């Protein structure tokens, strides 16, 4: 293999560059649209029923004089999902603060807990009702999945919450939360980034944000140019993916009819007796599945290097 090909980097070999290219393209779409939105361009967002229900849920809780419960999922650390969940809860808390409605925000992760506490405190301060903020309303429950599930379920039953928001990363405990809240008649808005849990929420909750509706929430609720632009960038990316699927389907349909006399295994082409083309022979399959040929690169050895086994002796 020529030296120039060896040094392009492991991830760019064969069609590996394609994934990186697509990622950069999506990033470019998002940034371009943020710029457009900041420039005053009016960008449209469709109606999302689950988000319209937030005000209704808080209003109901206020009428009943019962708390609103929020759970930002079971993220192991502060990630994009947890931050987005807390962002939505900031909106919920703002409305609750205006109506002097008690809130409860239960955290699974200590890092998310500190972030949520700061954010919610800021919300109360910016609303000018810092005295209404109860530091114990944002609480760390447990970082063990079912201990957390038991803790939150107990809280729902004891406090008889009128509205519950489960937004973020949920796993097996999703149905425990949703059914417990359902059993006391709480109005529920939920969303899980885990597709396996979405059906459980759909079965048990009043409103469910599916897939990227969860990420669209902040843009929908606040109409901030940065968020709206970013959302339109995501839509452009989705359009690109749809076009690629259509193009790939048509191409595969024609390609799969033909025959082939060559096959590539682990990046190496070899001649084979003529046979019908398989899916792995098609252009799209090979584009999305880089086949990396084993390459040997000779490098100098560090004179100070001690192999692991010898170091232990």
């Amino acid at each position, binding site marked *: 293999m020529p030296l120039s090909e*060896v*040094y392009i*980097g*492991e*991830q760019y070999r064969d069609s590996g560059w394609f994934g*990186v290219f697509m*990622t950069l393209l*999506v990033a470019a779409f998002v940034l371009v649209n*943020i710029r457009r939105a900041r420039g005053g361009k009016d960008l449209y967002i469709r109606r999302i029923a689950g988000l319209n229900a937030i005000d209704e849920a808080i209003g109901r809780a206020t009428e009943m004089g019962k708390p609103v419960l929020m759970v930002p999922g079971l993220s192991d650390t502060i990630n*994009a999902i947890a*931050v*987005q969940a807390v*962002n939505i809860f*900031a909106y919920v808390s703002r409305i609750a603060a205006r109506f002097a409605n008690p809130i409860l925000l239960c*955290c699974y*992760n*200590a890092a998310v*807990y500190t972030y949520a506490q700061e*954010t919610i405190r800021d919300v109360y301060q910016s609303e000018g009702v810092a005295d209404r903020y109860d*530091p*114990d309303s944002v*609480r*760390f429950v447990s970082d*063990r*999945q*079912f*201990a957390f*599930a*038991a803790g939150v379920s*107990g809280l729902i039953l004891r406090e008889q919450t009128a509205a519950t928001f489960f937004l973020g990363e949920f796993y097996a405990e999703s*149905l*425990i939360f*949703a*059914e417990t809240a*359902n059993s006391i008649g709480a109005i529920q808005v939920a969303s899980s*980034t885990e*597709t396996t849990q*979405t059906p*459980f929420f759909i079965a*048990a909750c009043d409103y469910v944000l599916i*897939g*990227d509706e*969860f*990420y669209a929430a*902040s843009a929908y609720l*606040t109409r901030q140019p*940065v*968020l709206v632009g*970013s*959302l339109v*960038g*995501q839509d452009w990316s*989705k359009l690109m*993916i749809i076009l690629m699927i259509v193009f790939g389907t048509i191409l595969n349909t024609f390609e799969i009819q033909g025959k082939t006399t060559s096959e590539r295994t682990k990046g190496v082409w070899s001649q084979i007796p003529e046979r019908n083309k398989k899916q792995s022979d098609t252009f799209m399959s090979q584009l999305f599945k880089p086949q990396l040929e084993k390459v040997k*690169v000779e*490098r*100098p050895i*560090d004179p100070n*290097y001690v*192999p692991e086994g010898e170091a232990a002796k």
Partner: protein
Amino acid sequence: MIPLLQAQAPATSFWSEAFNSSELWTKLIITLIVGLVVMVGLLYAPIRARKPIVAFFTFISGAYWVLLYLWPKPIDRQPGEMPLNTVETVSFWLADSNNVVVSFTQILTGFLLGLGIFSLLKIHLTKISKGHKDAFFSIVLLASMGLMIWFGYADWFDRLGERGAMLDNRDNWGFTQYGRDFLFEGLLQQMDAAMFSVIAFYILSAAYRAFRVRSVEATILLSAALLVLLSLMGAVSFVWDENVKAIANGNPFILNFQLTEVAQWIRNTFQTSSIRGIQFGVGLGALAMGLRLWLSLEKPGSGS
């Protein structure tokens, strides 16, 4: 000491000094001092300057991961090898620093866990001191937490010593090991399993509500679910499929109506494509969110 041991990276890393060596301690102390200076600096920084400082550190931290993803990764790298050129020097450094960067996250999480425990103590001690009606549960929680911490650490220290290897054999266990085993394996694990089992009952009640024939959509959902459920029942699918085979008499079109085929078609055609569609949306959303956070375009609590 354990996190530092784990943080030791291969030869090219800044932290790769011998364990407990003066060089490593010097670097650690210097880093601690720099950290304290940065922290004090941040505390006394003018409020207007805080945002750019936070944005700068966010960008630098995020840039590491972006670079790790985009920078050409070394091909066929073996232990002890030295980089061939500048590109490889950077890629070796990025790869070797990974353990250290990940350790930063773990150390931060360790500190933050302290805040989490403080929150728990504050809430439950207040409940106990005020004689709240649920104070008994708070006492149980705090006692369980204290006992678990004590037994956990006592057992860990025992295993660090010379007796550590002997403790793999249950016959050599003492009070500490039995205590830890009772609390962790005997109580906590079993209670976890019990909570997990409860889901089965919740699935039943949720399914009952979801699968009622209320609208066209609910009826389609019910029919599809019923077919998939029946296909998973061995006896039902066997009888159905055998009957279809007998009717089909080799006709490939009619063979498509075997229960297992229909269920597979539902899964492959509708379920998989729907899930992938949702996953595309979630992935794009996470990428856009990550980009906004990295470039500090997103401010905390921007949902409000």
